């Protein structure tokens, strides 16, 4: 579980979100997942850069005629005014601090989540990244006999 994470309000615009992500990136923070809270301060979801990317797009295929860089950037500017709430995924599983690894593995296998927030009493205690789950699973699954790569010829 990572206790250090970025937090943002669901009312913030994508422009502000991009500022947070890129600024965090510059400061070497983990920007793969940002915790979103609503106006009341309650957990609302997890936002990843991928969601922001998707939120910047309109419905036009850029390979269509007339789709210049200028046109594209213009529509991106428009979308940057949207709020976090507009792009936030509807579902986001959470776990309690006591959740076993098996449960985490099951949740991670469900879909393309970047992380699973750990919630206690409505507050986000920290984030369990998929990479953390993978590391934990791998460390108990791998043993000295099965370590390493066996080439097919061997």
């Amino acid at each position, binding site marked *: 579980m990572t206790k250090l994470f970025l937090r943002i309000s669901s009312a913030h615009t994508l422009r502000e979100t*991009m500022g947070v992500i*890129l600024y965090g990136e510059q400061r070497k923070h983990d920007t793969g*997942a940002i915790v979103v809270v609503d106006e009341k301060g309650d957990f609302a979801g997890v936002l990843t*850069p991928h969601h922001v990317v998707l939120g*910047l797009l309109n419905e036009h295929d850029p390979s269509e005629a007339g789709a210049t860089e200028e046109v594209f950037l213009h529509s991106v500017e428009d979308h940057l005014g949207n709020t976090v709430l507009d792009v936030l995924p509807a579902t986001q599983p959470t776990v309690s601090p006591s959740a076993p690894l*098996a449960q985490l*593995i099951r949740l*991670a*296998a469900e879909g393309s989540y970047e992380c699973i927030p750990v919630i206690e009493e409505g507050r986000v205690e920290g984030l369990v990244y998929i990479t953390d789950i993978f590391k934990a*699973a791998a460390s108990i699954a791998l043993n000295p006999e099965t370590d390493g790569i066996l080439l097919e010829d061997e």
Partner: protein
Amino acid sequence: MKLPFAGSDLRALPTRLREYVASDARQDATAGLTVAVMGVPQAMAYALIAGLPPVWGLYTAMVTCAMAAVFGSSNHLVTGPTNAICMVILSLTAHLPAKYDVSLLEIVLLLTFLTGLIQFLFGILRLGGIIRYVSHSVVIGFTAGAGILIAVNQLKNILGFQLDDHPERFAEVLFDTIVALPQTNFYALALGLITAFSVIFLPRIDKRIPAALVGIAISGGLAFVFGWHEPEMGAGRIEIVRDIEPISATLNLFHFPELLVPPPYELTRELGIGAVALAILGLIEAASIARAVASQSGQRLDFNREFVGQGVGNIVGSFFSCFAGSGSFTRTAVCYKSGGRTRMAAIFSAFWTMLTILLFASVANYIPKASLAGLLIVIAYTMIDKHHFVITWNSGKYSRLVLFGTMGSTLVLPLEYAIFVGVFLSIVLLLRATGHADLTQLVPRSDSGFDELPFRRAPASEVVTVNMEGDLYFAAAEDLDYELFECLTPKTRVVILRMKRLRAVGSTAMAILERFETLLRKRNIHLVVCGIEDRLKKVMTGSGLRQRIGEQNIFYADNKLFQSTELSLARAWSIVEMERRRAEATQKSDRKLDTSTRAGTIMSPRILRFGNQHQIREATWLIFEMMKHIEQKTSQPLFLQDAEGRLDAELTLASILKTLGQDLKEEDDGLESEELGEKLREHFSVSIGSIARRDLPRTQVTASLAQLLWLSRTDDLKTIPICDEEGRLSGLVGPLDMLKGVGKALDFDPERELPKV
């Protein structure tokens, strides 16, 4: 070959003489006789060319011939009167007696002395080598021109009349002769034609017949028998040798040149230039004839000694009523072919000539002038070397220019100037031919060393190595620039000039370097020079060029062949490499300025390549190991490649966990790590190829930002793999990369855009 009298030990003389008599004397005497038989009529005829008494020709064939043989070096060269020289003598002296009121004979003797003196000086100052630089085309052209002059000048003699106002110029003589045609003396013409036909046709019957002698004897005999020389013939009387100056059977020929003490200043000055021309012409003739015969006999010639011989021959000759002589081609050839072995052959010919005077003087007096003219016209025709004309014509425009320039000037200018024109032209020709640097290109071979290719044949390369070879004089330097530039291709970045084999004065080499350096600099091409000799180094230092080219671009000649070239080549390639990197750097910064962001500019090239044939166990281990070195929490998919290295599939952490944990149920939540690990391992043997996602787009570095974003949505890909043209993975563009790209494209300042707290 034995050289008589060559030994300094006089006591050995009798022995040597005996040896000589035993070995070569008979051969030399015979050869000498053959030469004399042929030479006597020639000598008399040539005197006629110069407008001098025929007996002087005989004197020259004796004294000058013997002296030149004694002091010269060629075994076969026969010196004496020659046609071209006699023509020059005529041109030089004919107008002077009237001008200075001195006898023609004295003027000619002074000229002969001066000519001999100049030749002698040439010899002792060792300037013999100079003659080598006179082109053969000059000799051919001059001889041909002189031949035409002789023929035209002898027309009056063969036609048996005299031209009243003594014209000298070619055109004047020709014109006056044509005007005087009605006065033709047909007796004279007949005698001339008989001689000419004899000279032409007798050798065809038998080569051994002395055609000139026989021809003159027949015609002279005819004239004598019919008494055509008698005063009773009136207007039809023909002129004979006696009319010019009688030949007496005495050898009272010593005559101190009256003009020698003291030489009259004006006349000497006027003759001086002519004497130089005559001396040069004499030396050219003698040297080229001696060389021609030496090339057959195999004798090694000392040209300086040959010049001394010619000089002494003429100096001594001037005291014995001789005019200037030189090597005679025909007599020299006869001397060699009739078995002459030593220089004694020429001395024998002088002796036989003297005997001729003593024995046949009274007969010789009756030789008709027209017969000698007939002989001369045939000789004049042979002076035009048709064979070499063709060769010279075919050997390029410069040779042609020299040939016809010289020949033309003989007909237009005073003859002595024609010689200078010829010499001048041949020097120009020489410079043209040798003053041209050859350029080749050196291409390094793969093993080691270089291939030398003709200029502009080398394949286009960033580095062009030009090898300069040959002599170079200043005027050619400018042409060279343009030639050098032809080796440049659009690809060329560095030119290496190899100057080791270039022979040029320092200032010329400098001028080329300097100009080339400036011109290359303008084109932004680097110059590296190698094979720089010490001499050039000094000049380069002095002029500051060394600094301008830069010491790191200069490689000095080394004893080891091509060492400096190899070093300079290494330097050149490092310049190319440096430039390439710099260009890449600027290109990158150019791209940043460019508003159109491409996949290639935002992708991260750090990727792990993994084959698609592995099992999950191996993939798990690999990713696990990899994660130990990465602090980033964000999950990265693993892109798999096929056996050929092409992008094949995407393996996400989620898909691995899904496979490994597919049996986990809610009731397994209480499992111990050990048991859980056991459950996960059950699926370790699943092939990753079967669980990886295969329907990946093959996006290339040129993909625009918009297309990348669009792909994230349509293909539901967080991270987009970027492939090269062969489909091999060359980088990844993750969502963060895309946001960075958008930020850059919008000139987005993250700090300013942070939410206000």
